[in-house]
């Protein structure tokens, strides 16, 4: 019996090792390339967040060729396993590690202190004094505001349903921006929020979208990764704004637009800096003007007048003539929260835990 148990354990651990996803791409052999690694929370073909980051990694390979050797770890859970993954990546000789989910923060920061020779960069992360620590993200809210405008014009019931992942500042900020955008073109519009408490659960995202439609929403907004809310929208014949990926070709009848990101330019710059030895710590926050974020091509549900309106607003944001968080802004109770002439400052944007007027929903404690 003992022998069998041993065999079982051996086979089991071999299967486990085989199943752990790991990919290395050797891009050349001249000199010794700098190793760069990415840690993803989802699968690289999620059609959303992780796909966008992996496209960024591929852009690094394309731009730097044989000077870089990239690795990625996908489907890494936001738990103690991350520390192990980071240790392995450091042992493999990676000189810069990018982690692309908020929940990796603690483990990444601990690793930054443990391995001072390796650069750690955390997307959507929290700034820290560690000299080898950088954070990077972008003004998704500017694009989200523009997507909200499309939704505000398209809704007939004046009810927009938002499928929201987790009640963290990033998501609250996006819901606020979306609502401000929708109400800038349709003051009667309200945005109903349903929390699914998951970054990736397509069935639940679809179920949430259906519950919003049954609650009167005629436009669905995705705050999460999968196109599943689009399937609910398609079945119910209502409009859909996605997030992170252009699904217009797959959902032509329901598609409005989506806030999308271009991570490749930033990744290439950072890896190049490591190669050149000029890397410095920083907290990068890209925006529409940088080309870091934009909106996906419009679907046929967005009429020409609305397209012109959104394009003009986008031009204003790029030119620095329009601040989406400029006051006056009321909170949900209708009380003035941000006075005319003021704006929600960057620090508060990063920690925001209140909804603007027009959001129908609450932030769970």
């Amino acid at each position: 019996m003992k022998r069998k148990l041993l065999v079982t354990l051996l086979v089991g651990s071999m299967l486990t090792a085989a199943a752990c996803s790991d990919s290395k791409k050797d891009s050349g052999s001249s000199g010794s390339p700098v190793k760069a690694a990415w840690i993803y929370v989802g699968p690289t073909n999620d059609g959303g967040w992780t796909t966008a980051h992996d496209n960024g990694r591929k852009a690094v390979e394309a731009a730097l060729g044989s000077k870089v050797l990239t690795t990625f770890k996908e489907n890494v859970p936001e738990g103690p396993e991350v520390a192990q993954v980071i240790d392995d990546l450091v042992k493999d000789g990676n000189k810069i590690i990018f982690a692309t989910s908020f929940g990796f923060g603690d483990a990444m920061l601990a690793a930054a202190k443990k391995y001072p020779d390796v650069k750690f960069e955390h997307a959507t992360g929290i700034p820290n004094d560690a000299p080898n620590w950088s954070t990077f993200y972008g003004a998704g809210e500017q694009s989200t505001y523009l997507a909200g405008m499309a939704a505000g014009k398209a809704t007939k019931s004046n009810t927009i349903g938002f499928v929201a992942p987790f009640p963290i500042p990033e998501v609250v900020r996006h819901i606020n921006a979306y609502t401000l955008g929708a109400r800038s073109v349709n003051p009667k519009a309200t945005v109903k929020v349903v929390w699914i408490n998951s970054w990736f659960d397509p069935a639940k995202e679809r179920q949430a979208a259906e519950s919003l439609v049954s609650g009167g929403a005629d436009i669905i907004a995705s705050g999460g990764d999968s196109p599943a809310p689009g399937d609910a929208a398609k079945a119910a014949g209502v409009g859909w704004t996605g997030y992170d990926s252009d699904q217009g070709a797959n959902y032509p009848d329901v598609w409005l637009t989506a806030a999308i990101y271009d991570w490749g330019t930033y990744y290439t710059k950072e890896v190049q800096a490591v190669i050149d030895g000029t890397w410095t710590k920083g907290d990068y926050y890209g925006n529409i003007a940088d080309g870091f974020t934009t909106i996906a091509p419009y679907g046929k549900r967005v009429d020409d007048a609305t397209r012109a309106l959104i394009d003009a607003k986008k031009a204003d944001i790029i030119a620095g003539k329009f601040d989406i968080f400029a006051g006056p802004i009321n909170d949900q109770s209708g009380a003035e929260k941000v006075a005319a002439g003021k704006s929600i400052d960057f620090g508060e944007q990063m920690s925001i835990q209140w909804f603007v007027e027009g959001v129908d929903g609450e932030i769970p404690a």
Partner: protein
Amino acid sequence: MNSNLFIVIAASAIYYGTPLLFSALGGVLTERSGVLNLGVEGMMLLGAVCASWTASRVDGPGWLVLSLALLAGIAAGSAAALLHAFAVITLRVNQTVSGLAITILAGSAGLSSYLASVWDLKNPVKHQFGKLDVFGLGDMPILGPILFHHTLLTYLSWALVVLISWYLFRTRAGLQLRAVGESPQTADAVGINVVRTRYVHTILGGALAGVGGVCFSLSIVPTWQDGMTAGRGWIAIALVIFGFWRPDLAMVGAYVFGAFSSLSLTLQARGVKITPQLLDSLPYVMTIAVLVVVSGGWAKRRLGAPAALGIPYEREER
């Protein structure tokens, strides 16, 4: 749009409970034979990805492609279950380890994702199981939207509940199956082929888990997503216990789970102030409560797990 709260939740419970029901029914059959299968999640994903490929790439009339896709899902789940059966029945390795290995091997970071990437599955499938209006009853008040506006898969699952209940409790083969799960030594002594019984029901369990996966990839999430089942396989395993290893109660459990999931979302969408985490956790709390109940003396004899569940059978050790 019928937006009565009860109707919305009941209809949603059945739609989202259907994949759980298939996988749980498979679990009932497998565990009744004394084999624990923790590979359900992996088998669901394999079924889902193979069905997704078939429905994306095979040309033909919709009904034919969908039938082939369903068969592909069944075949994929069965193949993974055959591997499990070989490991735990023939090699008599630890059932927990083998099941976990299959879930990890086939799961969201494993074979199913690899196949999806090799097959380049990133667009919506060409054919999917749409909702049917059965006998024109879909327009009936209340019952119409709840019961008669589902996909073919849901009606198939109802038929299976009846069929498997009849099989387990009204047929000779069902009696033999239960005997193997309770006491393989005794079953062997009266001439029942323990190994064959366990193989057959482990593979049937995998086939049904494969169909559970098909519910995802061809109905709920018709665009392939790695790990799209998001842990439903584990819930199906819990439902087997929740349903006292009975098909009818597994059905109740699957729909209760679907209803709680819908309740938390629907109440939020109607502006009712609740803590979604609390409602989301209730099915698990109920599963633990059931576990406590079935571990008691009387209940253990009447309702509990098959006595030989998880124990490899070796003839020499009689």
